């Protein structure tokens, strides 16, 4: 799989961009705030339909696009991808419309110029993105770890993606109902709540089971790479799932062990979550939110049996994230037989010499990669000689010879 051409219209600070993309490593450089990151974001967005930086997708449309009071403003991302079955034409449209006094936003996806559901765009272009904020994954919030994991797993399993989006819809309805029960009392709403709870745990049983399996697969790749390549057999890293399928009185390690024993039976997992939800009902009504479920999951790293978050050095934490990224690449390769495109956003400057060298070695083995950097001096000359270089300046890209 190889990206051969990218064109952007009204995306971030690009008014219009037509960019042929070569094989091997492309190095994008330029001063800050010129559009380096936006270029990687565009490729990532076409692959995952999500932005790594924002949940408000209407912000992705160029600020200057359209005139004051324009009825419709369209941002467009188009990629040509060479695959084993020929060239694919992928397109994603961001549409902002003024209807009466309300502004609406919607997205359209096209594969080979035919309209498809957004979900069907996934899997046509596979990427692994590495940004400086990923280095804080270990110490950051559970929400950021879940978001990271979900985007990664969605690229690898479409059924997971669909079930997750269904789960989130049910959860939203259930939480709205819990808030109503806090205001109006439980009498009339109990029956409806039971229905939403039933649907919620059915979807949750699936998600717990798929997540457990996918994390297990990812963990194996990450652990092997960390041990063999990054620490030369000196440290053993473990990536562990911490499912929230019981109340806070139950230890999460215990929940994880139980889950792995029942991973083939989503119905039993759903039943266990249902029991736990019944116990926390009055608490959940007071809070107006569901306190148990995959939306509260977490995952952790351990090095030599100790929590990396609490006891790891900054360097060890960075090695773990590097192993995670390399593990993602290995996983996608194993799943699909084709390498993903590696996108590195200004990460080199954040790494010390040895880790930088590991990443450069990995880069040189990638069939295709795009990296951004404010300066080129941090790269070894022999590496630079192998890269194609692009300069970005105020939303314009030109190649450097």
């Amino acid at each position, binding site marked *: 799989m190889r990206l051969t051409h990218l064109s952007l219209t009204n995306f971030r600070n690009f008014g219009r961009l037509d960019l042929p993309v070569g094989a091997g490593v492309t190095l994008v450089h330029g001063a800050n705030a010129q559009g380096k990151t936006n270029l990687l974001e565009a490729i990532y967005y076409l692959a995952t339909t999500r932005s790594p930086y924002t949940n408000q997708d209407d912000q992705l449309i160029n600020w200057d696009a359209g005139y004051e009071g324009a*009825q419709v403003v369209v941002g467009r991302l188009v990629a040509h991808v060479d695959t084993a079955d020929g060239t694919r034409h992928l397109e994603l449209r961001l549409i902002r419309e*003024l*209807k*009466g006094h309300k502004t609406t936003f919607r997205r359209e996806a096209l594969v080979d110029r035919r309209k498809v*559901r957004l979900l069907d765009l996934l899997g046509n272009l596979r990427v692994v993105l590495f940004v400086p904020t990923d280095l804080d994954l270990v110490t950051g919030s559970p929400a950021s770890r879940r978001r990271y994991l979900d985007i990664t797993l969605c690229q690898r399993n479409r*059924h997971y993606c*669909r079930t997750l989006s*269904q789960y989130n*819809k*049910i959860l*939203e*309805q*259930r939480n*709205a*109902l819990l808030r*109503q029960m806090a205001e109006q009392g439980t009498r*009339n*709403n109990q*029956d*409806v709540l039971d*229905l*939403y709870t*039933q*649907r919620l745990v059915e979807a949750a049983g699936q998600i717990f089971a798929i997540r457990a399996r996918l994390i297990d697969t990812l963990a194996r790749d990450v652990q092997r790479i960390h041990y063999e390549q990054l620490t030369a057999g000196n440290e053993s890293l473990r990536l562990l799932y911490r499912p929230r399928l019981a109340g806070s009185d139950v230890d999460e390690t215990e929940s994880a062990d139980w889950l792995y024993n029942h991973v083939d039976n989503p119905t039993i997992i759903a039943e266990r979550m249902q029991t736990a939800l019944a116990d926390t009902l009055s608490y959940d009504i007071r809070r107006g939110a569901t306190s148990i479920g995959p939306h509260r999951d977490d995952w952790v790293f351990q090095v030599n049996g100790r929590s990396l978050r609490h006891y790891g050095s900054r360097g060890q934490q960075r090695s773990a994230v590097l192993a995670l990224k390399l593990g993602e690449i290995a996983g996608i390769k194993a799943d699909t037989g084709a390498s993903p495109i590696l996108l590195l956003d200004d990460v080199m400057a954040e790494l010390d010499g040895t880790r930088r060298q590991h990443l450069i070695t990995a880069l040189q083995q990638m069939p295709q990669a795009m990296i951004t950097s404010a300066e080129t001096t941090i790269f070894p000359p022999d590496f630079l000689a192998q890269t194609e270089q692009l300069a970005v300046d105020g939303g314009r890209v030109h190649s450097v010879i």
Partner: protein
Amino acid sequence: MSNVLPKPVLRLINEFGRLPGIGPKTASRLTFYLLRGNDAGLAADLSAALAELSENTQYCTACHNITEQNPCEVCSDTERDQQVICVVEEPLDVVAIERSRMFGGVYHVLHGALSPVEGIGPDDLKIGELIGRVQQGDFREVILATNATLEGDTTASYLQMRLADTAVRVTRLARGLPVGGDIEYTDEVTLGRALEGRRELK
């Protein structure tokens, strides 16, 4: 604009603007079209139609569909099977089912579906009316024809629960392959449902 145009013109532009799908530009265009009077009698016909809309329509006390007469044409039609009720979310769903020409029973319009996010609970829909109707009437079957969305499905499950202790048979519309559909291009969920709901042929 507001200083130049006479008040009646502004008022009509404003009223048009309240309709769904109509922005300020379309509202002005419609208003000026009516004002120019190129189409003789259009403005008068339109105002008569609007007046009739509010004066001569009501909700049928049996099925809660919009009607001119009460009970509505369907509910008072003795040719139709008065023992089978088809439950739908909106009046337009009745129109769609009638178009299929496959249903000869009567309807019950809920006027929405359960959705806590929008603050719609059982009391906001014509659900109590449906239960009362089934308990008091002589019915063989209730067909739940709510949408195949999360909200529609939940509403159907809720109705199923509320109707559990009545003697009536409760069914749900089948779902699966669309007519003219290609199995190869059908998504997994729809195909899975189609397999679940397969029918014995012999």
